[in-house]
Structure formats: structure tokens, C-alpha cells
């Protein structure tokens, strides 16, 4: 299992060993260095578009020929274009808020495309790319941000749970779902089911994530913990969440942890397929840390220029998840200008449809406030609804006179 020993002087090693320990400042600097990917980063495609062979993971992407890679490229371009359109619509006042995914396309498409039809995904609130990969119509998803609905898709049909906004809650919900898969005997062979749960580096500080790790491990749940380490939890950097690389936390819970280049769609696909295979066969959870970067703000209410340096952004631009696939395809003859232009045109059309749909999204009727609070009828709510609708009717009647 890929892992790096976190070296630390053992107690009783003597004054020399203690003196050799880094100062707190050096620890912070070291964490920064540790967080820069490191030798343990699984990568199959470099930022320059060079394919790196991998003894462990090549077999998991043996089917990925140029056509499959073109599709992954197309997925990422469409999702990025949709993201940019939504971001613009928020700026124009058409959406209440937007949560940008810019820069995280490879982590989401790579992992999302690794899932089988029976697997279940529990997202946080930035997983628009995973939603797309699960077949959710992004127009349904935009209702959340237009504030017409809290969740507009059929979670059962798409096997994609509603967005969870409270940080880390969904990790426990996913653990419970995966326990259910185990209890139903749906694990043990290639046909097994698994659950994947998405959360960010900031969420790893939440108690629910810790408890999710405990439950997943104790019950050998078929659960892939997919942490998108995008380096920033709003304004708090990853080193404010952890003193060691996040993937190494898995060791403390007794299941494998692995760090993958989150900007490498091929590596994300391979590593997630491997992790899902582990789960399907009943080996319990796996933690994947997708090492990536949030290129835009946390949400459209955020101002990242207050807390991070532009140098950092510029450095990550060179690791763009889409450009490296484009370079690989172009260099190897896997795609030509017509293909790239065609995908861009398709993405523009996709964005135009989103825009049109958003503008035409009907406002829900007032009585929706009262709908589905309970599965069973509630006389108290029925009375409140009738009273309020009657009150509204009073205005209509007044207008007629």
C-alpha cells in the first residue's frame, strides 16, 4: 500500500534526538512541503501530458484508449464550461450563490466515471462534475443555486445523494448506506456494490468525518472516502486541518490511504477503480486524497485574494487538468483541431441551454413551503397552509374590486 512513514523521534531517544526535532515554524514549513504532492503522489499523466507507466494502476485503465480519453476530455470541458456559466450567472444576479469547481474537473470526472451503475455517491456541495458523471441533468441541479429547490434530482435513479451543505454530515450518512450494502450481502465479488463519499480537506477536521472513518472501519463498509484536498477550506489552509498528509490518516483507522494527483483524470479514474474494487470484494474502506487546487473562490461570496498569493494560483495553472489531456491527445494524434473545436462548440451550446433554462425556471408556488415536511399528513401544517393561502387569496379578492 502506498504510504510514507511519518518519522518522529521515539520517546527516550535522548537529547540529541529531541534537539533534532524541527521547531514549530519548521513543522509548518515542512507540512507545506509535504503537501506539495511528494513522491507518494500517484500520477499517470504529467502536467505536460506525458504518460507515466504504473505497475500498480495501469491495469485499471487498460481500456482507456484515445476514444475513452477524448470522452473524459469532453466531460471535463463541458463541466468546466457549465461551471463558468453558472459563475457568470451568479454575478449577473440570476443565481443566489455558486460554488465553483474550477480546477477540480479531473478529480470529479475521474472518480465519477469510475463508479458502476449500482454504486452510490454521497456528495458535498461542489460535486457538479460527479453529478454530471452520474447522469444528473445540471439544469435540475441549478435549482439549488437559483433557490427554487433544495435538491432537484431523483437520487435513486442516478444513485447520487442530495447535496449536503453542513460540512461532513454526509460522511456518516454514506457510512450508514455502505453498511446497508454490506448487511444486504452486496459485497464479496466483482459484482459487489460500493459507496463513494466526497468531502474536502476542511471537512477532515469535523467530528463526523472521524466518526465516519470509525464506522466504516468497524463494519468493513464498502466505502471509498474521496477527499478532494483543494488546499483551502475557505480561507483556512490544509495545514490548519492536519499535521500530516491527509491520506496518511487512514493508517490510524486501519484501512488503506492513497494520495492521487487530483488534476490527473487518468490517475483519478485508476485509483478510484482500484479502491472500489477493494470495497466490492469486502476489504472495507479506502481513503483517497485527491491532491488538487480550487482555482476560483470557495463560493461567489468569497474573496480569495485576501488570503492566498497569486503566485500559488499561477503555479497551479501549469497543472491544469484539462490541458494535460489535450496535450497528450494532440501529441499522440488522438485528437485534432476539429475535435477540440467541436467540443468547445458543444460546451458553449451546453452553457447556453443552462442559461436559458435558468432564466425560465418557474418559481415554486407558495404552498410548496408546506409540502413534504412529513411523509404522513400533519393537521397542524394543513391548518397553517390553509390559513396562509386564504390570507393570500384575500389580496386577490381585494384586487378584483
Amino acid at each position: 500500500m502506498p504510504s510514507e512513514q511519518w518519522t518522529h523521534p521515539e520517546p527516550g531517544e535522548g537529547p540529541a534526538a529531541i534537539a533534532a526535532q524541527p521547531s514549530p515554524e519548521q513543522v509548518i514549513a515542512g507540512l507545506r512541503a509535504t503537501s506539495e504532492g511528494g513522491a507518494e503522489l500517484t500520477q499517470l499523466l504529467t502536467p505536460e501530458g506525458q504518460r507515466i507507466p504504473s505497475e500498480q494502476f495501469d491495469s485499471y485503465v487498460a481500456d482507456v484508449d484515445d476514444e475513452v480519453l477524448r470522452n473524459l476530455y469532453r466531460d471535463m470541458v463541458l463541466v468546466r464550461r457549465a461551471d463558468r456559466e453558472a459563475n457568470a450567472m451568479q454575478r449577473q444576479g440570476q443565481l443566489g450563490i455558486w460554488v465553483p469547481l474550477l480546477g477540480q474537473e479531473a478529480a470529479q470526472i475521474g472518480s465519477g466515471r469510475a463508479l458502476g451503475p449500482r454504486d452510490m455517491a454521497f456528495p458535498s456541495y461542489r460535486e457538479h462534475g460527479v453529478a454530471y458523471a452520474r447522469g444528473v441533468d445540471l439544469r435540475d441541479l441549478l435549482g439549488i443555486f437559483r433557490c427554487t429547490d433544495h435538491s432537484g434530482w431523483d437520487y435513486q435513479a442516478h444513485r447520487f445523494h442530495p447535496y449536503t451543505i453542513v460540512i461532513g454530515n454526509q460522511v456518516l450518512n454514506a457510512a450508514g448506506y455502505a453498511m446497508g450494502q454490506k448487511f444486504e450481502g452486496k459485497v464479496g465479488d466483482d459484482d459487489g456494490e460500493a459507496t463513494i463519499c466526497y468531502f474536502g480537506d476542511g471537512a477532515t477536521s469535523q467530528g463526523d468525518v472521524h466518526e465516519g472513518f470509525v464506522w466504516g472501519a468497524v463494519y468493513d463498509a464498502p466505502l471509498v472516502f474521496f477527499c478532494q484536498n483543494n488546499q483551502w477550506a475557505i480561507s483556512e489552509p490544509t495545514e490548519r486541518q492536519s499535521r500530516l498528509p491527509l491520506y496518511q490518516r487512514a493508517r490510524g483507522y486501519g484501512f488503506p490511504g492513497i494520495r492521487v494527483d487530483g488534476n490527473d483524470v487518468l490517475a483519478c479514474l485508476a485509483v478510484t477503480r482500484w479502491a472500489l474494487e477493494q470495497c466490492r470484494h469486502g476489504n472495507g474502506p479506502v481513503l483517497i486524497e485527491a491532491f488538487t487546487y480550487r482555482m476560483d473562490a470557495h463560493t461567489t461570496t468569497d474573496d480569495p485574494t485576501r488570503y492566498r498569493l497569486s503566485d500559488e494560483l499561477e503555479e497551479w495553472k501549469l497543472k491544469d487538468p484539462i490541458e494535460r489531456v489535450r496535450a497528450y491527445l494532440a501529441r499522440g494524434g488522438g485528437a485534432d483541431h476539429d475535435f477540440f473545436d467541436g467540443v468547445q462548440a458543444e460546451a458553449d451550446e451546453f452553457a447556453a441551454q443552462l442559461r436559458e433554462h435558468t432564466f425560465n425556471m418557474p418559481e415554486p408556488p407558495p404552498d410548496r413551503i408546506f409540502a413534504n415536511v412529513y411523509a404522513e399528513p400533519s393537521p397542524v401544517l394543513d391548518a397553517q397552509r390553509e390559513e396562509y393561502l386564504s390570507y393570500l387569496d384575500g389580496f386577490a379578492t381585494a384586487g378584483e374590486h
Partner: protein
Amino acid sequence: MMDLQKLTIGKALNLGLRRAMEEDPKVLMMGEDIGKLGGVFRITDGLQKDFGEQRVLDTPLAESGIIGTAVGLAVRGFRPVCEIQFEGFIFPGFDQISSQLAKLHYRTQGRVKMPVVIRVPFGGGIGAVEHHSESPESLFSHIAGLKVVSISNAADAYWGIQEAIRSDDPILFFEPKKLYHSGALKMEIDTETSPGRVFGSRVVREGTTATVVSYGPSVKVALDAATAAEEEGKSLEVIDLRTLSPLDLGPVFESVRKTGRLIAVSEAPLESSLTSEIAARVQQECFYSLESPVLRVAGFDTPYPPAKLEEHYLPDLDRVLHAVDRSLSW
């Protein structure tokens, strides 16, 4: 076929849980120490032995974990029944209860059902240390999407727990721990013939002088007060709310229109509590029927005191009778 059994509340709950598990293989029990030990109050005694470790889960010690995974199991189609050891320990799970359990059905326009029951032993009078004697039910009654119920007798315990488990809504099921094993409260229950719907307010003793409304452990106090008042020639009508949220106040309004007086009794602190809500709604609906203001007998607006003081804190028969006298003297 009639099958009469004389049961305590605790035993009635145990049999009710057992029956729910027999009838539906998707029903699971989850909680700390509920398997081999049978729970700290032994309410799940013997269930793991008969249904196995996969249906009666001795969970890790974390309430958010218990409730958060129950939410996921419900999404998968299970019907989890969680036990919280003592009500004072429920707060680590408050986030999952309020953010996920109560809201998923609404958030998804009814696509996600949340048939989860959280059993909460509550209330004082057991001489315990801090965090073991509280009455936090009002806090949960304020959360839309949750149903909050309580029981006060063995028949409601037996049939009520089964009704709660069958419900597609998330239910906080408050159990009066002080009364679990009271031999004096043993009831003869027909465990085969369903009485129909359990929850909703119920008049448990008819009367004409004043109405006393209560729930959970305080129902016994109200009934004892009614017996004592009878000797003084006062006829108290006692109502057991049973459903705390959404409140079913129809029978209370009806009773107040008859008696003209209402005393609401609860162990919970007074301010912003269920008794506050009852007082507000009754004055709104029964204003012209009231002969005196609605009075409340409750815990004080303090943390639950050291147990050596709890006899002063908990509403007792004398405090209820004093309130009745005040109401009548208006």
C-alpha cells in the same frame, strides 16, 4: 386472539421492539451497549441473542455516528431504531438530527423517506449524576420535520414503539426512565389486538373542575394529583399529550372549553418550552372559555440540579394541587 400479559413499561418496550423486528427484517437496533448488555436499562435485553449482531448493533461510542449512519441506512431502505443511553448525551447527535434526519424528506420533495426512531430515556427522579435526568424534548419539538412523542404507560409503550417504527417519518421517542421498571405501573395488555392509532392526545381521566395536561413521567404525577383532589371534592380532567410535535391540542381545547381552567405540567424548564406553547395556543383558541390564566408547573430555568435537590425541582403532586388551588381562586 387475545393474549393478556401484565407488563412494566420497560418490558412492554422490549416486547414491542421484538415484535417489530419479527414483522419486518429491515428493522435494525443501533446503540451503545444495547447488544450483549441489553442496554443500560435492559430495554433491548435478549434481542441481539435472538436476531444477531447485524440486526442489533453494539455501536462505537459516538451519538452523531449512531444517528448519521442510521440516516444512511434509512436511505438504503432499512428502518433503524437508535437508542441514546441518556437524554443528556443526545447533543453530539443534534446536528445529524436537525440537519439531515429532519430535513431530507423536505429537501428532496419527498423522495427520501426517513423511517428512523431515536429512543431517548428522559426525565429525573432516579438520583443520578449530571446529564442523566434532563428533559430536552422542547428543543426537538422546535425542529420541523421531526416527530416527537412520549409515553407514560405500558400499553402505549408496547403499541407506540411499533407504530413509531412503522412510520415513514423520523421520530424521537421519549421514554420516562424513572417508570421503566415500576411494578406499581404494571398493566395488563392484550399484546395481540391492536388498539389502533396510539399517538395523539388522549384524555386519561375525565373531570370537570380543571384540566391538567401533561406527558411522559408527569402524567403519573397528574393522575396522582387528580386522585388526591377528588378527596377534596375537585374533579380534575387529565390529558396525556403523547404527541409533542406536531402537537395535537384538539382534545385539550375541548377539555378547557368544558372546565375553563388549565394547568400544564412538565419536568422541562419553563421558558420557551412545550408548556409555553400549550399556554399560548390555549389562550388563542379558548380565550372566552377560560376562567383563569393557564398555569404551568414545571422544572425551573436552571440546569438540572444535583440529585439531592431534585425533589424540589421536579413537579410533584403538591405543586400540581397548589396550581389547581391558584387557578380556582382567580
